[in-house]
């Protein structure tokens, strides 16, 4: 699956990427990561706040860091 992290490179965005990578490793699923930092590309998604997590072009969460349980639900 294709996982995109949308965010301007702030601490929260990096934390979200780190958490997501951890969950992906736990679950052992195949995934490509992309960290989108350009504001116009971010704004192409229906979100107003970063960080946001996009899995296969579907926005899962924006504006907050989800817990690991939530992440597992989206990634498995």
């Amino acid at each position: 699956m294709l996982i995109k992290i949308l965010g301007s490179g702030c601490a929260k965005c990096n934390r979200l990427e780190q958490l997501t990578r951890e969950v992906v490793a736990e679950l052992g699923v195949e995934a490509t990561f992309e960290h989108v930092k350009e504001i116009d590309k971010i704004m192409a998604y229906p979100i107003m706040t970063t960080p946001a997590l996009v899995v296969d072009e579907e926005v899962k969460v924006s504006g907050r860091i989800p817990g690991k349980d939530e992440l597992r639900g989206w990634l498995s």
Partner: protein
Amino acid sequence: MELVTAALQSGLASLASYLAAHVLLCLVPAFFIAGALSALVPQQSIIHYLGPDAPKYISYPAAASAGSLLAVCSCTVQPLFAGIYSKGAGLGPAVAFLFFAPAANILALSYTGVALGAEFAIARIVLALCFGIGIGLLMALIFRRSEMVRTGANATNGVFAKGEGIPRQNLIFLGVLIALLIGGTLKLDWLITPLFSTTLHWDLATTVQAVLDRLVPVNEIRGAEGLSLQGLMLIAMLLLIGGVGFRGLGQVDNGFNRQTPVALALIAATLIFAALDIRAIDGGLVVTITGRSLAVLVLITAILPLARRFDLWDMQQWLWETWRFVRMIFPLLVVGVFLVGVIRIFIQPEWVQFIAGSNTVLANLAGVAFGVFMYFPTLVEVPIAKMFLSLGMHPGPLIAYLMADPELSLQSILITSAIIGKLKAWTYVGLVALFSTLAGLTYGAWVDGTSLWLLVMGVLGIVGLIVGSLHLIDRTRVA
């Protein structure tokens, strides 16, 4: 050599008064509130008022409150600004949001209130609110033609959907934290009244205090508060918190570890200790418990059962966000405060009084210009303003400076122009400079005793004049 010693002493004095009890009682809760706003307020609860169909009387105030509630961190400012501009309520509310955010976040406001006085904090928030919305309306008016052409090409489906509101327990929690901030800082009678006083016997008390006084002299004219024994203890406790906090709070998002409760207990103890009144007398220390000490104690005790009702993950996020703010802002602030103290030695009060000693247009422009060309990290504008105030700057130009400095840095101008284009960005800069000057003049006139009604009428008159002439220009261009 003497000059170097004097400069270092002035730097230390400035740090000591920064770490004094009343500043701690304001900044520590403010950091926790900032963390809670960031972790516990669902952003959707405010964003859904900012949709493209929202009427003006809702979108502008909503944009302003988004500025003070959501934008504590600069990393939310940029996407939110771009989002409001390109998908939501448009240029006007986006500009109001951008203007209001740095002036009215909880950290800036509470620190301003404690360091400069409550009237400056109130002036800052009221003037920023009025002029932020004013600038937003003006920008929307000036560019309304290009705004109409701009099509909503971006995806908006579901962005402004009505999300969940703010849960009640989150509101109560925030309320208690805010009460702690207010109880720790306001100078109300029942908070200052001594309730109970006791003397601890300690022969060396005056000797130690004398040493501290020699190291960091008290100078009332300059506003240097010196370093008390209590202050020294507080600094030691802060260092301890810093040591434990790195693991206890910085890594709390992996689960509570053994140092988390230690760090939290230390912070609670520091706050309660700071709320006591301790003075050195001959042969001992007088410890006085005031209404404030009790209020702080009660509120801190109330936080624990409230916090237990949250999900573990929410609490971890709260503490992690709080620590992130501390780590991001505190070190820069400490260095900034020290440097401000050092520089102060080299600035003659006559210079400041000559340029900005009275409330003239020129003085206010000077305040704005200083704010535009100097860039200081978040919150450092406050000790700088305090320095100017003690050097004899008039409150009017000071407010002009305080309005312009966080709004207009080179960095923010660049970000803005990348999102809304150069022409709009520079128009915005011009308007902010104009309105900051106006804000300074207004506040200065109020301090000098002009009646409030006259000022309100004056400001309304000027704004009306600008709007009216814009309208006229627009019509002649069409005709």
